[in-house]
């Protein structure tokens, strides 16, 4: 050919026969290479890549699990806190109510006590007054008899007089 002399790889004339051996050489070399690589390089490498994939997957799963767990715990804590708060409120409320009740009770008791004291005082005063009146009455009678006997100068029977005078005084008391 015209430009053949320029071509590095051009062979002398045409190839006289098909290089059938090259076909087998290529095939055999390539297949052996592939088998060796699979055994010594790709196999282990794929294994380690798979292993890493699994590791990452399991790590992700573990992370997800722990996240869920912590979320659950948080929820639990929140519920507990809420419960505690409600309980505290209830306790305060209770105490308040109890205090109210106690105050009422104490007031009632005090009032009752005061009433009782007042009543007893009144009663005592009444009794004292009666006593005093009785005493005064007795004194008045004696004095009257004494005065009358002195005025009359004659001794009338003590008993008759007393009865008479007492009657008079009673009358006077009723009128007065």
């Amino acid at each position, binding site marked *: 050919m015209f430009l053949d002399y320029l071509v*590095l790889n051009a062979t002398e004339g045409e190839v006289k026969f098909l290089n059938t051996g090259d076909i087998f050489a290529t*095939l055999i070399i390539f297949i052996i290479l592939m088998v060796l*690589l699979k055994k010594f390089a790709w196999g282990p*490498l794929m294994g380690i890549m798979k292993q890493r994939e699994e590791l990452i997957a399991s790590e992700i799963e573990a992370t997800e699990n722990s996240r869920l767990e912590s979320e659950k715990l948080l929820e639990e804590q929140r519920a507990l806190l809420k419960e505690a708060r409600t309980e505290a409120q209830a306790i305060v409320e209770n105490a308040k109510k109890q205090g109210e009740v106690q105050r009422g009770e104490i007031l009632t008791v005090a009032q009752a006590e005061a009433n009782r004291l007042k009543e007893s005082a009144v009663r005592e005063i009444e009794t004292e007054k009666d006593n005093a009146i009785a005493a005064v009455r007795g004194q008045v009678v004696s004095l009257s008899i004494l005065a009358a006997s002195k005025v009359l100068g004659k001794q009338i029977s003590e008993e008759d007089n007393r009865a008479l005078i007492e009657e008079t005084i009673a009358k006077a008391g009723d009128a007065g």
Partner: protein
Amino acid sequence: MHHENPTIVWLGLTFNLSNVMMLLITAIIVLLIAVISTRRLSLKPTGMQNFMEWIMDFVKGIIKSNMDWGTGGRFHVLGITLIMFIFVANMLGIPFAIVIQGELWWKSPTADPLVAMTLAVMVVVLTHFYAIQMKGIKEYGKDFLRPLPFLAPLKVIEEFANTLTLGLRLYGNIYAGEILLGLLAGIGGATYLGFFGVIAPTLAWQGFSIFIGAIQSFIFVMLTMVYMAHKVSRDH
């Protein structure tokens, strides 16, 4: 600049020793890179392990963009091996070529049409194999009558077209890259002026070749998975 191929005949098969050697070198480099970088594996990846895992994820991404991972997972090893093998093979021819006594020894193995086509045929045969294995021979046969029965001849042609384009795209890109590098090297070796004049274009072309080599390995694996998905998927 005519070059012979160092061929021998063994067991009735013709071997191009250059191809065999370069394939072996490619395989050994890939094996070394892969094995060394996966010697000390740990859950917390460091250094080369990161790089390897990136390649794995990259190929995984290619497969996932074509089919679901449950179906495509089995092609993962094939994809990683293909992309690394083709990438390293493409890179080998970039720095230099070695010609001994008129016989071309050092080059990209993928710059040989037979090697590229063998890889392509292997991939297409695998797609048919997996289609039969996963869907059964009946379903596999019916696929040729879809979407319309009278398109069946086109479907058959499609298989050959796929194979040809898959292999020749790779071969053509790498071969063209090496030809241009060879031309530039020829100019550079001719005169002093040529040597200094050719430095910049050579640098540019080598950089571009690295890019092409990477892209072609990616495209090869991408198309492998596209064909695979096309054959293996149940609803299309």
